[in-house]
Structure formats: C-alpha cells, structure tokens
C-alpha cells in the first residue's frame, strides 16, 4: 500500500503527467504507421528517456509511448485495415468490417473501451500479483536465478516458434554470444573477443543493439517491399461519425471483457506468448462460445469479435510486465526493449527492484492505469484527426526512421563505431528475417547473457557446492531446469507424432516442394 502511494507521488507530478500525455500521443501517431509498432517506437524513444535522466519519470513516459503505440495499431486496423503490428491483426477481423458498414466511430469506441478495460484490469491483476511474486523471488539464490533465466529463454523459444523451437534457441545463443563481447560480467573483467579493437572493449551497447535489431531492419523492409503493411481494403479512410454505443451493446461487451482480461493477462505472463497469441486466442474463444446467431456475425463486424482481441491484447501487454518487473526476465521483445531502457537508466531490474526502488516499480504500475486513462480521455477524441494525417509518404518516413536510429546510437558514445555496429546488425537481422528466423530471442539472450554469467559465477564460486553440484543440491533449481528441458523437447516430440499421423492419413499423396 505504501508502495502504491510512492508510485502515485512519482506519477502525479506535472512533469510526469505531461510526459505521459506526450508519450501517448507520439506512441499512437507512430504506432498508426504501418510497419512501425511498439518495439520500434520505444527503441527510437529510449535516447529521449535516457536524456530525461530520472528513471521513474522516464519509464512512465515510455509506458505512455507503449500504450499509445498499441492503441495506434488498433486505430489503423479499424480505419484502413492496416494493422501496424501483428498483435492488432485480430482487431481488423471485425473492426474493419464494422467501419465499412458505416460504424467506424462505434468501432473506435469499442476498441478504446475494450483496451482501456483490458489494460486497467490487467494492471489491477499486476498490482495484486507483483508483490507476492517478488517476495517469492527474493528467496531465490544464484542457482535459482540461473535456472529461472534458462526457463524464461526456453519458454520464449518454445511458445514463440511452435515446431521450430531450435531456430529460436539458436537465436538466443546468438544473442548471448553478442553479449559476451567486451568486458562481460564481474567474473570476466578483462576484455575478450575484441581482437585488440578498442571501441569494442565496452561490448555492444544495448541501445545500439535494439536499434540495429528492430528499428533499422523495419526501415530496410519498408524499402525492399513498398507494398509492405499496405491494406487490402478499398483504400479509403472511413468517415468517423457517431461514436456512441448504447446500453445493450455495453451489456454485451461486459462479459467478454471480463473473460478476456483474465485470459489475456495469464497468457501475457507466460514468457514468449504475448499479445499476438492472446488476441488470436481470445477471438477464437469468443467465437466458439458465442450463441449461433452471434457466431455468424464474426468476421462481418461482430461486437464481440472486436471486443475480445482488443481486451486480450492489452491485458496481455500488461501481463508481460510481471516477469520483467518481478524477476527482471523479459518474456517478449517489447519488455526486453523496456528492460534495455531500465538498464540504460542505471536501474538493475530484478526482485530487489520493488524494495530498492519502490518509486520506479510502483511508478511503472501506476503509469499503466494512468496511461490507459490518458488514452481514453485525451487520445481517443483526437484519433480521428490524427488519422487524417496518417498518410506520411514512405519516401519521407524511411529516412527519418533511419536518422532517428542513427542519432540514438550515436548519442551512446559519440563514436562512429556504434553506427557501423548498428548498420551491420541491421543488415544481419534483415537477412535473418528473410530466412524467417525470430529476432526477439536475440535481444532476450543478449540481455540475459551477462546476468546469467554473474549468477553462474556466483553459483560456481559458492563454497557450498562443488562445480555444478548446485543443480542437484538445490531442488528448486532442478525442478526449473527440468521444466525448461520439457518445454524444449515437447514441441519437437509433438511435431514428430503429428507428422507420423498425417503421413499415415495421406500416404498416397505425392509430395513436391
């Protein structure tokens, strides 16, 4: 309770309020641009956040940017059938048909209310869950940390890439290898893998890394494919007329919101299964449990079909903060980027955060309530007008995205090496994405790499254990590691069984590739 008050006092200063409002506006504006989603917006805004200096206020602003970007994606899904990010694709299933029928205003209202409700209910669940979870995490020692990090990374691989988990695992390892360049943890206070090249001694800066991994490749893809993210609709922005919904509609939305907030939140808590999966699952679930006549409306502008993914999406975004805030382990690309922001601001995330920096911990949580309110009362009436400005031509947009990324990386150390590193990472990432390798695991491996090394070092040098004996001397560690192994192996075994069955089913079919 005391902590919540600390958070409130951090969030309710003039500066913080102004920055949340500004963050929401910038976030929703950039979030509406096809191709640019929360990850890109936050990456570009990190240098600004670092410039602000005060970690709690900076994080509050970034939280505003995040919510703004998520909502901006929903807006462009509804109005022009152009989801900026994967997590709002499900929104366009029913949001766009609704707008086409002439109810664009109503669709925006439903989306705004659902995301507000999902985000707020998610934030309440987070408030309730954070403290007990952090208390449990405080019991952890280095071996448990190490094991939990391995569980987190495995989960990212297993849930994120069904049937292709090994590709995600390879990417996690790639990220950890990148992290081991330069002076690593306290156990490696000697530069390594620098080949005598001085600028590499500090290692790759995490800001440079996320620019190179997320912002730059997105711009490269926009260059390569001019039609990228463009909509399949009739090409016209929908007229926004009556934004009201009536009591009957509100009554229909309420149970959907209740169900999907909880479901979405729980999915969000699991590492690797983020807002995209939550929104698609929420949509499918509501369609299945809807009565016959309501089910037929799905895909043609169903109220439930719009409410479900919007609620689940926002609840899951909030849920993904749980492992990040309590354990310091990011479960998604977006929270990994927010974690980079925290570390750049000089804050060590982990279970100690709640006691050492209660203002930051609760400030972030309070800013979630706050960001949701700001979105609802300030952004939502403005959206129609911002949407009209939407058509920034790509010929202007792309140079700007690249320019912002380069300035951000340059400000890290004012050294051209940062920029070269960023460009190389951008090219490599582009090639990896062309080959359909997942990118978020790289940044998760990068962030966890150094901290894993610290915990491994502490566990190995602990006189209670000899070598790796902590694995079986500490039952919790063993359980975590077994969970990790099970998650990694299960999809592979499952995939093999499914393949065998399918093969039996259509033995006669000719295969061609």
């Amino acid at each position, binding site marked *: 309770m005391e902590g919540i008050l600390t958070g409130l006092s951090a969030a309710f200063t003039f500066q913080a309020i102004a920055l949340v409002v500004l963050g929401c506006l910038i976030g929703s504006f950039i979030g509406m641009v096809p191709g640019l989603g929360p990850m890109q917006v936050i990456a570009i805004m990190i240098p600004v956040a*670092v*410039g602000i200096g005060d970690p709690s206020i900076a994080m509050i602003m970034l939280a505003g940017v995040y919510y703004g970007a998520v909502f901006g994606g929903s807006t462009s899904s509804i109005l022009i059938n152009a*989801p900026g990010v*994967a997590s709002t*694709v499900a929104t366009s299933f029913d949001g766009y048909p609704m707008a086409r029928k002439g109810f664009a205003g109503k669709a925006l209202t439903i989306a705004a209310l659902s995301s507000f409700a999902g985000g707020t209910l998610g934030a309440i669940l987070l408030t309730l869950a954070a403290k007990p979870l952090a208390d449990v995490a405080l019991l952890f020692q280095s071996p448990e940390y190490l094991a939990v990090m391995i569980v987190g990374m495995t989960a990212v691989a297993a849930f994120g890439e069904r049937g292709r988990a*090994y*590709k995600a695992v*390879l990417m996690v*390892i790639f990220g*950890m*290898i990148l992290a*081991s360049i330069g002076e*690593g943890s306290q*156990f*490696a206070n000697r530069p*390594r*893998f620098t080949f005598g090249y001085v600028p590499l001694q500090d290692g790759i800066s995490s800001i440079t890394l996320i620019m190179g991994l997320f912002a730059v490749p997105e711009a*490269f*893809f926009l*260059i*390569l*494919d*001019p039609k990228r993210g463009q909509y399949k609709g009739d090409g016209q922005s929908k007229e926004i007329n009556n934004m009201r919904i009536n009591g009957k509609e509100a009554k229909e939305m309420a149970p959907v919101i209740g169900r999907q907030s909880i479901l979405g939140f729980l999915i969000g808590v699991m590492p690797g299964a983020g807002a*995209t999966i939550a929104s*698609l*699952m929420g*949509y*499918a*679930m509501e*369609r*299945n449990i809807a009565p016959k006549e309501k089910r037929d409306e799905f895909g043609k502008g169903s109220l439930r079909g719009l409410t479900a993914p919007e609620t689940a999406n926002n609840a899951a975004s909030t849920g993904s903060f749980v492992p990040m805030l309590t354990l310091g382990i990011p479960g998604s690309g977006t929270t990994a980027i927010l974690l980079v922001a925290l570390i750049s601001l000089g804050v060590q995330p982990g279970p100690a955060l709640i006691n050492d920096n209660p203002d930051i911990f609760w400030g972030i949580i309070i800013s979630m309530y706050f960001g949701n309110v700001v979105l609802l009362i300030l952004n939502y009436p403005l959206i129609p007008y911002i949407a009209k400005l939407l058509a920034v031509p*790509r*010929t*202007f947009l*792309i*140079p700007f995205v*690249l*320019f912002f990324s*380069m*300035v951000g990386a*340059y*400000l890290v150390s*004012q050294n*051209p090496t940062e920029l*070269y590193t960023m*460009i190389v990472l951008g090219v490599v990432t582009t*090639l990896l*994405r*062309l*080959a*359909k390798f997942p990118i978020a695991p790289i940044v998760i491996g990068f962030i966890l*790499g150094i901290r894993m*090394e610290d915990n*491994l070092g502490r566990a*190995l*040098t602990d006189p209670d254990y000899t070598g790796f004996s902590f694995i079986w001397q500490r039952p919790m560690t063993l359980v975590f590691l077994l969970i990790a192994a099970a998650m990694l192996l299960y999809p592979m075994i499952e995939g093999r069984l499914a*393949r065998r069955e*399918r*093969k039996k089913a259509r033995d006669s079919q000719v295969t061609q*590739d």
Partner: protein
Amino acid sequence: MSRFLTADRIVGVILLILCCLFTYFAFDLAKTIPPFFKNQPMRVDTLPRILGVAGIIASVVTIIAPTTGAKARADAVKNADADASKGEGEGASEGEELTQAQLKENQDRMADLSFANFGQAKWGQLVAMIALMIVYSTYLRAGGFIPSTFFLLLLGSIILGERRWIAMVMVSLVAPLAIWLLVTYVLDRTIPPLPKAIMNMLGG
C-alpha cells in the same frame, strides 16, 4: 529453392561456421588468463565455452532438422483455411482450425519478404541507402550535425524516388535544426552542429 538447400539450412551453416570460430576463440582465451586465475571455478571463458558448444549443437540441429515438417504444417494451415472459408464446421476442433486459418492470415499480412520473392524487392534502393548511412556515420563529426543530416534526409528521399523538391528541401532543413535543438537543450548532449572547419573558426 531446392528441396534440401532451404533458407534455414543456409543460415544454419553460416551460424555453424561462426559458432565454430567463436568456440575456437573461447578455448583460446585460456592462454590469456594469468596462472593465479586458472584454477578458479568461474573463469572469463567458462560461459563462452558453454555457449560455443551449445551454439554448435543448435546450428547442427537447425541444419539436420527435417524440411518435411514445414510442408506438412503449411498443408495443415491450408486445409484449415479451406475449412474456415467454407464457413461452417462443427465440433470442438473448429476453434483450433479457425485459429490456424487466422494465424495464416496473420502471417500473410505481417509476413516479411522471403527468399521466394527475392527478385521483386528493391535491392538497389537498399544498397544505396546502406551506403548513404555508412557515409553519414563516417562524416557526421567532421561535417557537422546539421549539414550532414540535411544531405542524409534529402538524398534518402531521392534514393527512394521522391521528387517533390520543395517539400524535400523544407523537411530536410527544418528536421535537423529541430532535432539538434532537442538534443542540445532538452537532452543536454552536445553534437557539433556545423562542420569542423567552421566550428574552429567560431572558436567552438
């Protein structure tokens, strides 16, 4: 693309080579460790060695993993797609199939280009843009922030095929100024705004 030389395998082979090199250097690190630290349970090369070996294993798995899985999965999605477009299905499995179909649509929408439609992509523009970025990185300090950025934005638009000259020049002039003011007065960081020669003349 042939049946065996998939994108996964090409990347797998490249990463395998990189992981082997990394592993070699990781084991080579031992030479640089002073004798006193050699017997420590945790050394500078402990994690890199583990990582190197794990990386080799993961890339080998990526290379030898069957390609048939991808085709079977694509078929499954295609079937689910057909079922969903038929509109009606009964029973509990419908939800699963619907999600599959939507995942497919989701992937289509958000899909990156792949090696399959390699040729249609604007590779020339990309290469020109990367070259421009490298030049900008190299000459940012000497050329000063404002002029360098002006040329970056202007040439960037030209590379992408924009020809609305007035708008381009205006944007390229105003943006660097605005960002420089932001960086200097809001973020409190210094970037020399003008070319070195002029800055020296101004005594900056």
